């Protein structure tokens, strides 16, 4: 977990300005700053005290994001990680567990945010990622490969938000003018899932 967190923090720090710019186009320009602030806090928190289990670490990530990110992304990513923690409790995550966990996480995000696919939100990266992970696991692919497929799908999903008209979040105020821009939250979701795939790849390599 700590490898995923560290990679996520690194990727978010690196892509901070790009996420801000994407958010400036259709929102208020803070998504990169919010996510970087959150993951900096997460890294500090996890470095402070080693977690007992993956589930405990994920819970700490979720709670930390909840109290440091703010905005729309804070409660959504907070819910996502808390759901991952719930789904991995008492079992170190293998491929099947990860697939179930992402299922639960996506459901939690949708419960909190009420976004449907096509609303131009992080859900548009999460759902393809969830489905790709499930399909790869069902196909018996090794976890590293399955997570890579999931990250590919998230990136594809993020890109596919470009032509969409936003119906949730701050971008929805723009109406037609939201068309033609990639959703920042979908983009950060893809970054996180790419970091997850990378960390697993590393672990198992």
């Amino acid at each position, binding site marked *: 977990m700590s490898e995923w967190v560290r990679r996520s923090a690194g990727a978010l720090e690196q892509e901070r300005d790009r996420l*801000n710019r994407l958010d*400036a186009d*259709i*929102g*208020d*320009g*803070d998504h990169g*700053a*919010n996510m970087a*602030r959150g993951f900096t806090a997460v890294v500090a928190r996890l470095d402070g005290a080693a977690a007992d289990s993956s589930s405990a670490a994920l819970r700490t990530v979720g709670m930390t994001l*909840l*109290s*440091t*990110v*703010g*905005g*729309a*992304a*804070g*409660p*959504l990513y*907070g819910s996502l990680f808390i759901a991952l923690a719930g789904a991995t409790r008492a079992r170190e995550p293998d491929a099947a567990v990860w697939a179930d966990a992402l299922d639960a996480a996506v459901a939690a995000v949708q419960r*909190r*945010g009420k976004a449907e696919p096509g609303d131009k939100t992080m859900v548009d990266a999460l759902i393809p990622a969830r489905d790709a992970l499930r399909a790869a696991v069902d196909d018996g692919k090794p976890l590293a490969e399955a997570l890579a497929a999931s990250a590919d799908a998230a990136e594809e999903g993020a890109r596919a938000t470009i032509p969409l008209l936003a*119906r*949730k*979040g*701050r971008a*929805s*105020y*723009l*109406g037609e*003018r939201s068309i033609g821009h990639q959703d920042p939250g979908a983009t950060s979701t893809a970054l996180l899932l790419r970091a997850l795939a990378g960390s697993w790849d590393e672990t198992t390599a």
Partner: protein
Amino acid sequence: MKKLINDPEAVVREALEGVAAAHGDRLRVSHDPAFVARADAPVSGKVGILSGGGSGHEPLHGGFVGRGMLDVACPGAVFTSPTPDQMLAATQAVDGGAGVLHIVKNYTGDVMNFETAAELAAAEGSEVESVLVDDDVAVQDSTYTAGRRGVGATVLVEKLAGAAAEEGRSLAEVAAIARRVDEQARSMGMALTSCTVPHVGSPTFELADDEMEIGIGIHGEPGRERVRLEPADAIVDRLLEPILSDLPFNSGDRVLAFVNGMGGTPLIELYVVYRRVAQVLSERGLTIERNLVGNFITSLEMAGTSITLLKLDDELVRLWDAPVDTTALRWGV
């Protein structure tokens, strides 16, 4: 980026330290988690009034903490909703046994963070009611979208709900008044210039020298349309039209007219704006019974204005006139 700051990440914290240094006699500032409360909170038996949202809209909300208005304000990072742990601690700090009203501007982030906070507070034994402010007619109202933004009416909801709480009304009554104010208020804003979020460092949007943005929110979100610059009177007419027709406001109505500056517009220009508002409303047969002119809900250093109209009745006039004793709004004390 030209700002009087030390560190973009520390702006809110350092400003709160300044508020504590300047107003320690009337306000209690907590840093971790961050909130600004009345020094005498909790007031036993009184409904606590909590508001909060991203920073960068000063004097909203911290400048409205005090007798007759807010009991506590939760500032988030600049233009970013505060987090549930802040609202939880703030709720508990001002719960005098009669429950706490959460005033929430209708932004996805604020709504979700406040929802989470309300769940946590309820779990820990505080009675919480939430009121959503969504007065911005620049945004289409629809259940398929995030709905309208909360803008200028927030100040009015805070004042009027605060006055009702000070009168000793119950949580349900205070919440009902807050909802009535939101229902009877409509706003629309415009920008001549963008603003720069400290931790971003460059303007949120770019406007040419002869352009303005109509229908902006209070976070430097681009607005409804970008048009050529016009004289102040034409701009006022453009903002008033959708406000007047939305509720709608009718001849004979009594209203509160609130001309707000977005931060970078001098007061002298806001009075030029008010002049036209008064002209138009008088032509429409509306009576401005109360008014407010100044920078009260801002977007950092953005140049621009927003206009809010609230339909008044005797009760709202009485609550408006009731004493208020905050750093930004003060009368009757």
